[in-house]
């Protein structure tokens, strides 16, 4: 104490002064040390922090400043002025460096980067706590107000955090929902599938999954949802799931409505097929009688006529009833019945086509047309017709149906040939987009533009007086082309006769995916399609 007194005597300090100074200096030293320790702790906890060296320097500065105060306090007992001066100089230098480096270089960097807002991902870690908090807040807000249901789900299935939309979808308040787990809300039929995927995710087989599933809302109604789940791991240990749940109930209901409509249509179509089938059969039965008995009647009449004529020729010869009227009437009955028979047969054929099961395959068209021409050889020879087959591209379709299609076209050409010139039919092909277009051209009567729309209609006949057609040939062509996912068109203005374009899929792939087909209608405007 004596030393202290001598030392301080020159300054005229009293005891109270001295002790106040000592205590305040000690307190300041402790405060500086605490701040430095706190900074060291932060630096130790966050090794990835940017400008680490600057923070270290700052820590050093704080420590040094603290030490100068400690030395000041001790100087009353131990006058280490030299060390105190050195410490003060060091602290001053540290201040200078911190101010120069920190204020002039690092500060503008931090200020500038946060002003830009959009940081590269790796820079996020370097953001100051405030910035990070702001970002986390923003993200939380985004999740809370997201337009689709979002949740953090525990490994046991409990809802850890849910957003507003999810509460709305399920009809629960947030606190109610958090009391439950997803298993409770899941439709029992869908639970196993979901759990299985969950297990696989936990086992590390998959990282995420999506599925369509049903939940029950608060009212006990089914909610159709599209669920996407991703598992979050930390250090390879599963932590929690992030689930996104999109309510697709309206779409599902629409789909179900469509499905039921399609089923209804299918049923109606089947019924119609059945009706056509049954009716045309049952109608043929009485026809057998009408034709059979009118033929019998004709024979009987002839016999009767003969006998009466033999017994009294003079009287029967003048009576026109037996000879002319009755046979004529019978002829009309007979002919009408035959026409009806043809129509019914056609109808049957048409309905059978609708029920026919297609086997799409690669078709060797040169062979198919060659066989067809052979089949028609007799008829072609009979009318002195010539058919020219070009080198044909192959296509894809049902052998029977495509054969029928081209058979009908040849048959049509023969039926509606011109009497002025011998019939010539030319068949060629070209590739149009993903289809093959076959051209069947003849030099016959042709089809006037105003009738072209009609020719594909069922039972429509352009020349009822000419031939015994059933009015179904081209309708069947149309039906076949459509069922083959192709098309049939008429050239509106061929140079001569009629010109049909038949388009069929190039290969099985385009057959299987008709949406890939480039519709040639958009390429060739003037063609008249049966499709319109």
């Amino acid at each position, binding site marked *: 104490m004596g030393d202290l007194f001598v030392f301080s005597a020159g300054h005229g300090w009293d005891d109270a002064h001295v002790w106040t100074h000592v205590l305040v200096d000690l307190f300041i030293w402790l405060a500086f040390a605490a701040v430095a320790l706190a900074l060291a702790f932060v630096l130790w906890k966050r090794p990835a922090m940017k400008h680490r060296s600057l923070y270290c320097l700052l820590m050093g500065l704080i420590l040094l400043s603290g030490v100068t105060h400690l030395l000041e306090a001790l100087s009353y007992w131990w006058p280490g002025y030299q060390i105190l001066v050195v410490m003060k100089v060091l602290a001053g230098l540290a201040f200078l460096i911190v101010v120069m480096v920190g204020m002039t270089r690092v500060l503008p960097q931090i200020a500038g980067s946060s002003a830009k807002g959009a940081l590269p991902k790796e820079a996020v870690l370097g953001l100051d706590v405030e910035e990070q908090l702001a970002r986390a807040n923003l993200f939380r807000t985004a999740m809370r107000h997201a337009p689709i249901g979002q949740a953090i789900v525990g490994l046991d299935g409990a809802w850890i955090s849910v957003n507003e939309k999810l509460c709305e979808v399920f009809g629960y308040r947030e606190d109610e929902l958090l009391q439950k787990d997803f298993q409770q809300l899941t439709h029992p039929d869908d639970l196993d599938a979901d759990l299985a995927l969950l297990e696989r995710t936990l086992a590390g087989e998959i990282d995420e999954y999506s599925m369509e599933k049903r939940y029950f809302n608060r009212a006990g109604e089914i909610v159709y949802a599209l669920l996407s789940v991703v598992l979050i791991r930390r250090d390879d240990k599963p932590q929690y799931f992030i689930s996104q749940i999109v309510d697709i109930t309206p779409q599902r209901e629409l789909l179900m409505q469509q499905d039921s409509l399609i089923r209804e249509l299918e049923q109606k179509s089947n019924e119609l097929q059945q009706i056509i089938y049954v009716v045309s*059969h*049952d109608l*043929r*039965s*009485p*026809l*057998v*009688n009408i*034709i*059979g*008995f009118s*033929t*019998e009647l004709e024979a009987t009449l002839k016999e009767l006529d003969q006998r009466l004529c033999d017994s009294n020729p003079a009287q029967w010869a003048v009576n026109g009833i037996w000879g002319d009227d009755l046979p004529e009437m019978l002829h009309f009955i007979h002919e009408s*019945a*035959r026409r009806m*028979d043809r129509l019914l*047969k056609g109808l*049957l054929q048409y309905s*059978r086509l609708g029920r026919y099961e297609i086997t799409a395959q690669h078709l060797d068209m040169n062979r198919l047309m060659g066989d067809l021409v052979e089949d028609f050889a007799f008829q072609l020879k009979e009318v002195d017709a010539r058919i020219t087959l070009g080198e044909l591209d192959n296509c894809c379709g049902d052998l029977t149906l495509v054969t029928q299609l081209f058979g009908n076209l040849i048959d049509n050409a023969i039926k509606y040939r011109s009497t002025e010139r011998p019939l010539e039919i030319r068949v060629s092909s070209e590739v149009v987009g993903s289809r093959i277009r076959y051209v069947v051209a003849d030099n016959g009567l042709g089809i006037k533009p105003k009738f072209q729309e009609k020719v594909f209609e069922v039972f429509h006949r352009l020349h009822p007086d000419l031939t015994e057609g059933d009015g179904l040939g081209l309708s069947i062509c149309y039906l076949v082309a459509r069922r083959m996912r192709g098309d049939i068109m008429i050239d509106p203005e061929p140079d001569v006769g009629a010109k049909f374009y038949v388009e069929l899929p190039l290969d099985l792939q385009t057959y299987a995916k008709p949406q890939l087909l480039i519709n040639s209608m958009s390429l060739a405007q003037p063609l008249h399609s049966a499709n319109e």
Partner: protein
Amino acid sequence: MSSLCRNVIILLVDDDAGHRHLVKRSLKRLQVASEVIEFEHGLALLEYLAESRKSATPMAERYVILLDIRMPKMSGVEVLQELKSDPVLDPIPVIMVTTTDDPLEMRRCHELGCCRYVTKPVDSDEFAKVLQDLGRFLSDNIFPPTQ
């Protein structure tokens, strides 16, 4: 032909009386002299056959069945099925005479074991042709001339 067919009985199963009548007239015109027994539906035929099982003469030598397909109660195909699943009735030749020219139906009948399938043509000339064919078929295939 007529003499060969004399001993055989034609069992004509058709719900349409007119068709039966026409078939009978045509058979007569074609001089098939066999006795014809008519049935309005398949059940009646099966009842009749159940009764005649007791006879000693083998079925195939006694009967030929002309069977329509579209009939009430039991369709011709069902009757055919029944006949072919019974070992005693199985040998009886069955000829389907029907308005159905559906290839699927035809195939089915052939699979089931009918001898022939003729569609009832509305055209009387063709009908005669078919019956003529039928007569030839009866004499050639079922009752080959015995020395």
